[in-house]
């Protein structure tokens, strides 16, 4: 496997050196993006997003839970990701892989640190708060699952309805309005091979690349970031990519 990736890297860097990409996209172009919000009825919120051949579904559920000890007045936000074995021959059944955990945590950080959800409004009474579960279901893997998942997650949150609460429990199937959101968070993920950087790595590019950088932005701020892979970025790389993220973020937000 490793030697194949070496060959992929050689091919990719030769193509990038000529200022091109293997699928003839521009350096900072996304593949085709489709977002479908509100596709499920049982879940309080749901959406599908696809970037190229990657397809991700997100379901949002509400429950009643105990608050965390250090935050007794706040609701609970929990994000998980399943790399389903039907999505790729690379995924296996079993406990979540480190890739699945990283994916969930990066998406979670974007949502959480943007304060788009007012978790204090989820407080019900002593020892009782609302818990919001964001479940990322990867259905097809062709690279850049982070951007695809965060797009699906944001769209699912935007489609979410607040559950109706009666006598301290949720009345299923009845709602009390939409989930209020303050910000629309989107992520942009950039791959890097040698000195060349590019947006939205496909699976082939992911296999050959040295590293990636994900920047989550609101309309005004950077709110989360994650570097992955063995390669390195300079400070200038990061500020340059943030400028591009801010521009590309507008395009992504327009699709929500």
């Amino acid at each position: 496997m490793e030697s194949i990736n070496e060959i992929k890297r050689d091919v990719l860097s030769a193509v990038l050196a000529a200022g091109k990409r293997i699928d003839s996209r521009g350096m900072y172009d996304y593949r085709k993006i489709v977002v479908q919000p509100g596709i499920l009825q049982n879940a309080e919120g749901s959406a599908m997003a696809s970037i190229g051949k990657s397809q991700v579904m997100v379901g949002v559920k509400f429950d009643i839970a105990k608050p965390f000890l250090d935050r007794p007045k706040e609701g609970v936000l929990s994000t998980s990701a399943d790399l389903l074995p039907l999505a790729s021959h690379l995924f296996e059944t079993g406990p979540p892989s480190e890739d699945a955990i990283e994916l969930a945590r990066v998406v979670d950080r974007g949502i959480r640190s943007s304060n788009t959800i007012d978790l204090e409004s989820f407080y019900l009474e002593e020892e009782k708060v609302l818990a919001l579960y964001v479940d990322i279901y990867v259905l097809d893997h062709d690279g850049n699952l982070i951007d695809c998942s965060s797009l699906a997650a944001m769209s699912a949150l935007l489609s979410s309805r607040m559950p109706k609460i009666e006598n301290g429990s949720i009345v299923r199937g009845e709602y009390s309005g939409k989930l209020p959101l303050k910000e629309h968070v989107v992520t942009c993920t950039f791959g890097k091979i040698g000195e060349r950087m590019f947006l939205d790595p496909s699976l082939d590019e992911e296999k050959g690349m040295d590293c990636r950088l994900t920047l989550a932005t609101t309309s005004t701020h950077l709110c989360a970031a994650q570097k992955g892979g063995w390669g390195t970025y300079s400070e200038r790389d990061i500020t340059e990519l943030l400028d591009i993220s801010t521009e590309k973020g507008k395009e992504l937000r327009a699709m929500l």
Partner: protein
Amino acid sequence: MGATGKEKPKLYESGRRVDGRGLADLRGIKIESRVLNDADGSAYIEWGKNKILAGVYGPSECIPRHDQSLYRSVIKCRYNMAPFSGMEEHGRSGPSRRSKELSKVIKEAFESVIISENFPKTQIEIFVEVLQSDGGTRCAAVTAAAVALADAGIPMKDLISAVAVCKIDGHMAVDPGKEEDNFGESDMPIAFSPRTGEILLFQMDGLLSREELSEGISLARQASEKIRKIQVEAIAKVYQEPKEERFLVIK
């Protein structure tokens, strides 16, 4: 029963069931094949409010090696429910006792129709993801998985389908919905091989007389013929209207 703690509603009154169907009527069924890119075969089914995705990989090298057979391909199945699939609380991820049992009976239904002797030392994997559940998920899963296997080009003796029958207020009825599943007197999922008429999956709970059993099986058999037509249409559509992109579109 009555797992939800609600009062049992009247399930059959003046010739109509809770959702207005007659005793032999199926809920609406739609199947779309070839919706995933990496899987060798795939199918998406909407059956009532059920939304289920099936993906198939194989025949490929059987791993781990000690699972291999020198004589045939090993069929593996994973039936799994998304944590957001139900109306009630958020589910736990990972296999439950129920999903392990269903994986097993679904796999066994396919073992007698897949011509596995053609592929010794290999495995054929069937993955079923219940994205939204509304009663009768195992039957919808078998029905979708059969289409996904056909899409993957895996040779089979027959295109199988499954449907449940139930007993509601003393009447045998086909394809129970969630409420009929919860409050009905009996539930009996059956998978048929339509070509031979043989039964490949058979489960039952509740109380039935011998006559009711026969009536139920014959109701299920008639319904499964209707389902088979929808399966065949889904497979044909892939070739009649070839798409450039494989895409799961949910309405």
